[in-house]
């Protein structure tokens, strides 16, 4: 099997450096400069993988990013393995270990190959049609379908490689390093513009660079010589950055482009260590020049997918660039002149083409004449109707075409072949142009969609064959001409160009080539990766699918990892022919980024692990860590959740903390609460408008709880605001709401009430807050601030004092979220940890117990205080929360006021906040559990759900808050909480469970 098909004459492969690699466990050799595909072909290996649906043997079809079949799994390390890698793109490196995908036990003997024989039973939409019924069986079907879906295997462990992002701004970005891209880059650089040239290959020059043919001359030298001199001259421009191995992934609006640069994938494993694997470039270019080229089309005939059937231009590249013969008995099948260039290249390398099948009646082109002069046999007006060979093409059959091209006539003749080159013309790569929002137009002459340059969405231009210019003289002269106006050039170094190239004289296109058999007996593949055939497309049309987007999804044509680069045009052509529509009217399916698949690593870059999101820590965080805190994420904040002691679990710790806070004293780090400093002569008026209650009469030195609504009347945020001076307030918000509240207030100030003299400053991070609660809190504060009179008359509940602790200014507030006598100290954050330690020392004799968010939640639930975001969900009004007392009814207006008496918000059967007690006081409800009245009438009506639930150590029973339809009226009513294995009986109560008379506030 392993025969060396390498020829010795060529310029591009370093045949002195041998590289060893493995394919399916077999040790093979290639050379530096090879791709995996060229190295495999040199070893006479065509069979690379199995197709997705029918598990048909498939081989390498192309030499570039459009490859549908030659996709492999690289490596087998669970964290580094890479699935669905195109063998045509990966450069050979020492130790490369590739294996076939979608086959078991091996690519040569694949059990799944049975699908091929079942293929008549597996038409388009097979899964949709078959697994619809009985519907209850879906879960069973799904298991098997999931197992057969997908091609390669995803890595199972996290990726240790480093990926990078880089921003770049430039005057001109040139995409593609073929001849038009090189000319563009040089003209741009010559004008002194800051230019970036990117190309996805390891070398520049595109397909011209290996075009060694006397027919193609620029200024009297062969086009490849001329181009390599031009590439050499690019080195002279310091303002030109050239990025090889860089593939443009996406072209977004306003010339924002993403490009992925491969930095290490071509290196041996040892050379990669410590290096960045891929870099995602985020480029903002003033002007973009797309020179993305074109790709060759296949031809659609029965069994056109066998290994050994390769695009004719790829055969040419393998022989001219890599020095690899793709077979020893090669024939060509074409509808245009370019296959003849392949024939000439092969002939020069000593490979005689057996026969050229051409569907055209004849061609007078110079290049065809040259082939005929070589004595090669051309079968005009003929088509391949069938091929034979399972794991490699063995032979093909040819018949004459009828005059109209719809049928075949005459006798069959059979030719042996181990490789068949196919050429169906060229498709401009308009992906990037359309991604950016550009519109295409259809050129009937050669059936191509090309950019409509009149409908260019941004400052960009398409040049060369991606703009539908396929002849060398056209490419060069038009590129120069277009760039002169695009870059505003008067004279260029390319002004006197003499170009010789052959002219293609005859054209013929047949999307689906006829056969002597009915279409049902043929297998003309369109999408080689997803195994959809021309039959499937026709079936979809018969079944009533009209839109190309629907046909695409139903047949999966163009939905593989190659995104239909080879198949889409033929699918469109067949739809147009079958429905009698013009292709231009039919349009294309949407081209979406990325152009070729991107790794997740490149997308996320450095934003992984601890860099995935910001982490905010309070100034006292280190103390919490040292003292064993378990943390909870609240937004980006790390908040102590509870402080376990002696191996306590969360429940035990919270029970202890809650009891200590009410029996003696507890201390909480409340620094994460949002703090907004509000100043200005209209500050009071502003608060009147944003809170539901009245603020004008609040005395200086007093605090007030406020509820903030949205305009729709729903509770948005809450917190205590303190009047520090005549025109000075400090507002507290919830931890999670801080940023949004500030934005909302700024919005109203700037847009609705610009006349108000109010200034907002966030001081959340500048001040830390320590909250001390419990009957002994007063004794502790007295030790810390001995000079302050803490009597209820001097310092009552809901008031504030400016004071000093160890000479540091502090704001001391007497406010309570637990219902206990309690204080909050606000201090500049850099003193916070010291103060916390001071408090702990002062509180030692009173068993001052640090507690976290869980205990805080429990204590406030005992008092029936809401947490916005937990007990509310944006659908509850103050009245729904039984908080009508906080509505300033006399106020003219405040945000959301009008909504409080809309017909919907005054409905009596809205969900309303209630308390719940379980009949069994030990039974703790699950938060989120549903509440029902009657479980026997079906469907069971859901009356509401539990929003907060705890076991209260201070009451020695389970308590909960819930929202229930018409809850206000239902006090004393029995409801049921149905759980998976039992029903829990509960009774609706008041929302306040503990100290209903608020005696403890002043205890």
């Amino acid at each position, binding site marked *: 099997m392993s025969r060396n098909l390498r020829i010795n004459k060529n310029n591009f492969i370093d045949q002195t450096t041998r590289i060893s690699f493995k394919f399916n466990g077999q040790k093979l050799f290639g050379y530096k400069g090879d791709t995996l595909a060229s190295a495999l072909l040199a070893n006479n290996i065509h069979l690379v993988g199995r197709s997705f649906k029918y598990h048909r043997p498939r081989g390498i079809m192309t030499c570039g990013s459009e490859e549908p079949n030659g996709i492999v799994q690289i490596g087998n390390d669970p964290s580094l393995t890479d699935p669905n890698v195109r063998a045509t793109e990966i450069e050979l490196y020492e130790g490369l270990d590739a294996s076939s995908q979608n086959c078991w036990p091996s690519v040569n003997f694949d059990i799944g190959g049975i699908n091929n024989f079942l293929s008549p039973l597996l038409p388009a939409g097979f899964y949709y049609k078959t697994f619809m019924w009985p519907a209850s069986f879906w879960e069973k079907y799904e298991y098997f379908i999931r197992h057969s879906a997908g091609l390669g295997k995803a890595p199972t462990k996290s990726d240790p490689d480093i990926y990078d992002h880089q921003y770049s701004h430039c005057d001109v970005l040139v995409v593609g390093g073929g001849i038009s891209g090189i000319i563009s880059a040089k003209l741009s650089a010559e004008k002194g513009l800051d230019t970036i040239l990117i190309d996805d290959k390891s070398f520049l020059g595109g397909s011209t660079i290996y075009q060694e043919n006397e027919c193609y001359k620029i200024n009297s030298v062969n086009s490849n010589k001329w181009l390599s001199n031009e590439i050499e001259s690019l080195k002279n421009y310091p303002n030109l950055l050239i990025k090889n191995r860089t593939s443009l992934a996406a072209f977004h609006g306003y010339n924002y482009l993403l490009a992925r640069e491969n930095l290490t994938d071509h290196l041996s494993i040892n050379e990669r260590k410590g290096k960045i694997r891929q870099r995602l470039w985020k480029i903002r270019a003033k002007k973009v020049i797309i020179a993305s080229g074109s790709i060759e089309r296949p031809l659609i005939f029965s069994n056109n997918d066998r290994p050994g059937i390769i695009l004719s231009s790829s055969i040419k590249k393998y022989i001219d660039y890599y020095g690899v013969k793709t077979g020893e008995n090669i024939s060509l099948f074409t509808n245009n002149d370019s296959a003849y260039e392949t024939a000439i290249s092969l002939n020069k390398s000593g490979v005689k083409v057996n026969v050229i099948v051409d569907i055209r009646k004849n061609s007078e082109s110079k290049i065809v004449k040259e082939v005929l002069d070589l004595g090669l046999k051309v079968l005009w007006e003929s088509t391949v109707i069938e091929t034979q060979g399972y794991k490699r093409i063995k032979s093909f059959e040819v018949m004459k075409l009828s005059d109209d091209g719809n049928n075949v006539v005459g006798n069959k003749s059979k030719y042996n072949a181990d490789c068949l080159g196919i050429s169906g013309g060229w498709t401009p790569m308009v992906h990037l142009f359309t991604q950016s929002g550009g519109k295409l137009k259809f050129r009937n002459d050669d059936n191509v969609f090309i950019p409509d340059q009149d409908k260019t969405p941004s400052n960009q231009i398409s040049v060369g064959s991606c703009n539908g210019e396929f002849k060398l003289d056209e490419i060069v002269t038009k590129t120069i001409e277009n760039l002169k106006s695009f870059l505003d050039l008067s004279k260029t170094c390319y002004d006197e160009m003499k170009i010789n190239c052959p002219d293609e004289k005859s054209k013929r296109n047949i999307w689906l080539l006829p056969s002597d058999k009915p279409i049902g007996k043929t297998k003309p593949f369109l999408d080689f990766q997803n195994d959809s055939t021309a039959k499937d497309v026709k079936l979809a049309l018969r079944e009533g699918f009209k839109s190309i987007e629907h046909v695409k999804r139903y047949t999966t044509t163009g939905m593989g990892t190659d995104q239909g680069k080879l198949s889409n045009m033929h699918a469109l052509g067949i739809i147009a022919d079958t429905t009698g529509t013009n292709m231009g009217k039919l349009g294309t399916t949407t081209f979406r980024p990325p152009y070729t698949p991107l790794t997740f690593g490149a997308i996320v870059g450095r934003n992984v692990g601890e860099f995935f999101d910001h982490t905010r820590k309070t100034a006292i965080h280190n103390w919490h860590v040292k003292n064993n805190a378990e943390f909870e994420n609240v937004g980006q904040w790390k908040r102590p959740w509870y402080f376990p002691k002696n191996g306590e679990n969360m429940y035990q710790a919270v029970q202890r903390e809650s009891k200590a806070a009410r029996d003696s004293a507890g201390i909480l780090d409340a620094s994460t609460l949002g703090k907004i400093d509000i100043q200005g002569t209209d500050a009071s008026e502003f608060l009147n408008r944003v809170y539901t209650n009245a603020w004008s009469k609040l005395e200086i030195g007093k605090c007030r709880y406020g509820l903030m609504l949205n305009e729709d009347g729903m509770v948005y945020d809450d917190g205590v605001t303190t009047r520090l001076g005549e025109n000075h307030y400090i507002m507290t918000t919830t931890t999670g709401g801080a940023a949004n509240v500030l*934005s909302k207030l700024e919005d109203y100030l700037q847009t609705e009430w*610009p006349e108000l003299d109010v200034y907002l400053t966030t001081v959340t991070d500048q001040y830390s807050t320590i909250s001390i609660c419990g009957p002994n809190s007063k004794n502790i504060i007295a030790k810390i601030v001995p000079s302050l009179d803490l009597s209820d008359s001097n310092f009552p509940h809901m008031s504030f004092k400016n004071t000093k602790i160890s000479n540091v200014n502090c704001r001391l507030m007497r406010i309570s979220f637990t219902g206990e006598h309690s204080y909050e100290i606000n201090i500049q954050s850099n003193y916070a940890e010291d103060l916390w330690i001071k408090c702990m020392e002062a509180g030692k004799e009173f068993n001052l117990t640090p507690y976290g968010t869980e205990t805080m939640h429990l204590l406030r639930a005992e008092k029936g205080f809401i947490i916005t975001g937990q007990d509310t969900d944006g659908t509850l009004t103050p009245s729904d929360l039984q908080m009508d007392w906080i509505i300033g009814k006399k106020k003219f*207006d405040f945000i959301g006021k*009008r*909504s409080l008496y*809309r*017909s919907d918000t005054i409905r009596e059967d809205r969900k309303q906040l209630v308390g719940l007690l379980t009949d069994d006081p030990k039974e703790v409800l699950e938060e989120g559990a549903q509440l029902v009245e009657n479980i026997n009438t079906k469907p069971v009506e859901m009356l509401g759900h539990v929003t907060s639930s705890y076991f209260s150590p201070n009451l020695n029973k389970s308590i909960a808050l819930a929202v229930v339809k018409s809850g206000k009226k239902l006090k004393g009513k029995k409801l049921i909480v149905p759980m998976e294995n039992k029903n829990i009986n509960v009774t609706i109560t008041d929302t306040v469970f503990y100290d209903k008379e608020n005696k403890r506030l002043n205890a």
Partner: protein
Amino acid sequence: MFIINCPYCGERDQTEFSCGGEAHIERPKQPTELSDDQWAEYLFMRKNIKGVQFERWNHAHGCRKWFNMVRDTSNDKIQAVYKMGEKPPVK
């Protein structure tokens, strides 16, 4: 991804901004005078045009100023950017 010409800071990347929906919807001066339907019109009804649309934008990760923008939603061309309180420079 747009480049937005903040009227206070100049050209910046779209990632610095947040969109605040349709512009030129003034909060009623006397909400209590409005019927349910009139209030609902202010509260809920917003246009979603394919074509030229007037939008509020905030330079959230910059100067934090609100301003207005005229944008063609069919091709994302920004036709004008102007300060709050100013009349739109295009129709």
